[in-house]
């Protein structure tokens, strides 16, 4: 690549180390600016409310330079997409081009996450790429919103955009636009959100141009290299928290929606000095249902776990992301190939992967992992038409109970490691969709007991005021979030439907194979749809938890007196809810 000419005066202080360092920090703040631009201008609540999108800057070699607060599940998964776009277009880029990409087998996660890749230029020279990947409200397919739990083929799930230019040199390609928008539900949202994605990329280009003007293109490129070196060196240095050795873990996706058979995920972590390999050999082959993870999903999950363990405050870019070797057998549940459906791979299988890394390393770095978390997107959609004939699609996902730490209780009503999205307002939902939120409370006894207990899950109950078609792709409805070091498991996630006062699960009422992975279940208006978020697993033996902390949870109505007695060996007066010291002593002595 050729650098734009710079004046000698500008160049004079450019080579100084401190200036490069300052520019490195400006690159990171540029991505923060992209995020804020997206939030302010987006249309769908998935973007602007729930913040389900991610921004990053890449250099001309498809290496990530800077990434901002967004979804961890996206961060580690962006590089392969940019690589694919570069392979596809070579040097066929012009200023103002925008490439759309959501191909799950070529660097994408699931098709709902649509990437907008826009080259950045300064005075005619390509200096890198601004990338914004976000979850569109709908990308077509058999189920509104894409969460088709009964899908068995990727083509059923959603439209695939394998790297297509929707803008050429700043001009919209009307054919591509019309083609895409004709194939999605509620095209206005898709187009509005794409505009927000592009606006953020334009912001980045302006900001980079400003840096280039001031310091010269070479210096900006050097700052990008510095950013990568910095993160790699820091990652290598901090990696020493994990002792050299080989560590293994096995967990499973409880079912794929097509059968009740659990699908194992196995991993072996080998660490020697700064060499770190995560090998998934032995994991299940890809399956018929939509729980297959793409290569990008798997990378993202592994990075998220390792960054949490090694150094969560480090600036994320290729420097740390490329420092790990990930072996994921092609055609397996952690690296799917056509035609395996993948929608839930992103939302649930990634959770199982990051938790497996935690599980493998729990003995050697107990203070840097958590016990099992509700760990599902709890993704479910409802769709249909109102009496007035307007089409509606709502998409619910949310937090739950997080796993306990070896030094603290788990958080309640908080996101798992792979995501961090804002909860949506019931008042806004009731204004937009034909439903009412009738319950939004913590579930007593949902937290896994332990010396440190897990976080509590909560229920979100939706009273549907129109006939609605439901779909879901949720895991951890059968296998609960695990406890660690004698801590107990948390409560499972769950879905039920209440009609005429009778609350039942979906297998019982509708004969679905899975209780929480299904598509197009038609339910009548007046039904109450309950989405139960699970609780986090506990850490350490429950009978070692200080009795006053147990009693405090009982007084708060979060732990029942029965559970206090059974699991924690703590006696609480059922009437006054006061701690009974003598009886507690007795219970605990008997248990010891």
């Amino acid at each position, binding site marked *: 690549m050729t650098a734009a000419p710079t004046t000698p005066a500008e160049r004079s202080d450019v080579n100084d180390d*401190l200036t490069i*360092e*300052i520019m490195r*920090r*400006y690159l990171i*703040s540029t991505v923060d*600016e992209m995020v804020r*631009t997206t939030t*302010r*201008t*987006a*249309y*769908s609540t998935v973007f*602007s*409310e729930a913040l389900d999108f991610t921004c990053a800057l890449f250099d001309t070699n498809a290496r990530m330079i800077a990434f901002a*607060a967004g979804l*961890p599940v996206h961060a580690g998964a962006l590089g392969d997409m940019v690589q694919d776009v570069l392979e596809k277009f070579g040097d066929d880029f012009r200023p103002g081009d925008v490439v759309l990409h959501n191909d799950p087998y070529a660097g994408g996660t699931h098709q709902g996450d649509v990437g907008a890749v826009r080259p950045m230029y300064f005075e005619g020279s390509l200096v890198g790429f601004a990338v914004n990947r976000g979850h569109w409200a709908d990308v077509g397919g058999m189920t509104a919103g894409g969460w088709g739990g009964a899908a068995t083929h990727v083509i059923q799930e959603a439209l695939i955009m394998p790297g297509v230019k929707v803008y050429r040199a700043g001009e919209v390609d009307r054919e591509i636009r019309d083609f895409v928008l004709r194939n999605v539900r509620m095209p*206005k*949202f898709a187009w*509005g959100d794409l505009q927000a994605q592009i*606006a953020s990329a334009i912001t980045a280009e302006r900001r980079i141009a400003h840096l280039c003007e001031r310091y010269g293109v070479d210096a900006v490129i050097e700052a990008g290299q510095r950013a990568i070196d*910095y993160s790699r*060196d820091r990652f290598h240095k901090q990696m020493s928290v994990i002792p050299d050795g080989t560590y293994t873990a096995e967990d499973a996706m409880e079912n794929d929606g097509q059968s009740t058979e659990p699908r194992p995920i196995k991993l072996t972590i080998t660490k020697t000095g700064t060499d770190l390999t995560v090998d998934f050999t032995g994991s299940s082959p890809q399956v018929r249902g939509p729980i297959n993870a793409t290569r990008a999903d798997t990378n993202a999950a592994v990075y*998220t776990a390792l*960054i*949490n*363990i090694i150094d*969560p*405050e*480090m600036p994320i870019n290729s420097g740390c992301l490329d420092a790990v070797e990930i072996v994921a057998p092609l055609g397996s549940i952690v690296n799917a190939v056509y035609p395996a459906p993948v929608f839930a791979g992103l939302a649930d299988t990634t959770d199982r992967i990051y938790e497996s890394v935690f599980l493998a390393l729990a003995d050697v770095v107990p203070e840097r992992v*958590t016990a099992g978390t509700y760990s599902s997107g709890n993704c479910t959609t409802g769709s249909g038409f109102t009496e007035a004939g307007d089409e509606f699609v709502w998409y619910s996902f949310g*937090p739950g109970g997080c796993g306990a730490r070896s030094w*603290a209780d788990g*958080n*309640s*009503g*908080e*996101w*798992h*490691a792979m995501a961090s*999205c*804002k*909860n949506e*307002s*019931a*008042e806004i939902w*009731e*204004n937009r969709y034909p439903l*009412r*939120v*009738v319950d*939004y*409370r*913590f579930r007593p006894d949902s937290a896994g007991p332990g010396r440190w207990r897990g976080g509590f899950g*909560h229920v979100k*109950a939706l009273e549907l005021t129109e006939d609605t078609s439901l779909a879901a792709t949720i895991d951890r409805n059968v296998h609960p979030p695990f406890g660690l070091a004698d801590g107990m498991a948390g409560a499972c996630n769950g879905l039920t439907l209440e009609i005429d006062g009778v609350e039942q699960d979906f297998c019982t009422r509708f004969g679905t194979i899975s209780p929480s992975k299904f598509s197009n279940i038609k339910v009548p208006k007046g039904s109450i749809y309950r989405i139960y978020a699970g609780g986090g697993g506990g850490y350490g033996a429950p009978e070692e938890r200080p009795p006053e902390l147990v009693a405090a949870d009982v*007084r*708060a*109505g*979060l732990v029942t007196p029965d559970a206090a007695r059974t699991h924690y060996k703590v006696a609480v007066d059922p009437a006054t809810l006061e701690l009974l010291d003598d009886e507690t002593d007795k219970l605990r002595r008997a248990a010891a």
Partner: protein
Amino acid sequence: MKRVGIDIGGTFTDLVWYDEETSTLDRLKVLTSADQPDRSFIAALDQAGLLEDSQISLLLHATTLVTNLLIQRRGSSVGLLTTTGFRDLLAIQNSVRPNPFNYVEWNKRPALIPRELRLEIDERLDHLGNVLRPLDEAQVEEAARRLAELEVEGVAVCFLHSFVNPAHERRAGEILAEILAGVPISLSCDVDPTMREYERTSTTVINSYVQKALHGYVDALEDKLPLDVRFMHSGGGIIPASTAKALPVMLARSGPAAGVLAGVFLADQGERKDFITFDMGGTSCDVALIRDGAPEMTDSIDVDWNIPARTLSIDVQSVGAGGGSIAWIDPGGALMVGPQSSGSKPGPACYGAGGTEPTVTDANLCLGLIAENLLGGRMALSRAAAEEVLERLGAQLGQTAVDVSRAIFRIVNMNMALAIRQITVEKGIDPRDFDLVSFGGAGGQHAAPVAAELGIQRVLFAPQASTFSALGLLTADLTISHAQALFGRFEEIDLETLRTMMRTVGETSVRNLECDVEGASDARLSALLDLRYAGQVHHVSVPFDPDADDHAAVFERFEDAHETLYGTRLGDPAELVNVRMIARRHLPGITVENGSHANGGEPAAPRWVELERAEVPVVGREAFEAGKSMDGPVLIDEVDSTHYVPSGWAVSLGQGGAILAEHAA
């Protein structure tokens, strides 16, 4: 008559008073007593000889009391009533982590009210305000008795959709008031009648949480004073004590607002009206935008992570960058500055009070930006102590004390420049169209380099920089803004409905400014409409004249505003979200006789400044007041601050007694 402003901050209490007869302004600074701010208040008045002064017409107050109660979680034990199903909304919050990659270490901030005190009431409205389930009054009575038993000191009530139909909340409030006599009740339909239940509940709860302490504080002041105290709210307006007591959440950012108002006053003194205020003290730097003489506002602030208060506030961006900010090395080997601060105790190493960590002030001393003695020689700084800690830090990076000082200086400047970018560039505003107004103890040393970083060409060094903020109290008006949700497609909203609602909300705004103030005008009302493209989440506020405007005029104004802010004009239908009614009662302005602002600085021997690699002349402020202009580099020493004008800048007297530095380019 005299007007008195008292600004109580974490370290100092600043008092300014203005004599209307002589048009003179005086100032005084005393140390704040953190536990008993009312004592600091009285002590400051006493020292100024104003305690028994019968000539005081107006006593104005900015306070960090509410801010500190929230930061330190020292508010009251209060109860909350919610719609059945929603008692845990306050604890579930918004569920976003500060750093998405730091999952394991994150501890969610606990709710301000524990679960035992969050009670549910059977009642339900739909989104149009229709009653789906009537209020269970017996349940409210039972809840009131339960809360009485638990000895709560306040109750917040927030029911779903109450901003459309407040009847259930009002009735619940009546029942609570009967049973819990004397306990203040905060209803969400009064505190923040706008959409989104979490934000509304949070705002109402914050109001309740700080209410008792504020009542106590106001009562303590009124006991000891012969006249009423008026308060500055976060939006930079003055409100009577009665309104502050009813809506204490309005005081959450009372402190920083005064400084921005002082900037507005400076804008009134001359031709330049577009300012970025730059208030850098010991622990933080507050920046805000003034456009055409008016501060930029925000309708929501976070008092803690994910704990919002929706109250109209001056949009002050704060970064942990001050004289006491500590320099440290991160795990990747990069030099960082702040946000941790050495505070006033032990303070920077050069204070010689036991500080062992290198700070911005230490670096500035080492660079020659500040003199080795301050406060007219009353406070000596130890250059040796500063160099020792800087050398130790530099050794880890293979740098000398001077090199590392230079790096600290640039990094802290970058951090502050980024804060300014957030309130300008990121909102589509070009900072180069603004003058930077520098004040606060440390502002003068950094303002010009920060301006240069952003391409800003003019810096105004405010007079009496360290008490400049308090001046804002004397120049503010009585003003308040109330919002009310009115939701729907804008073109379908009947203008008569809109006007009726505006009248009701306007009456509330006027009522909340009622108080006897000599010279205050009658209240004037103006209206804003919060609009967005149907489907968007974030709104834009545009002015609305109920007598002249029709739908088309407002829609066009909205599209203009959207285009200015975000660069897009979509032509899609608009949605109305809220109506805002602003009441304002003008107070007579102050006119300061042109006197000297000279502040103890004297021409001194030139100092070696490392950033210039040269001996730099040192002058006092009076040099410019006498009409002198100079080219940088030059240092302007005052008793409590130093202003640094780098080479490439020219310096002369500017508007309102400020010193103006202009970039030569």
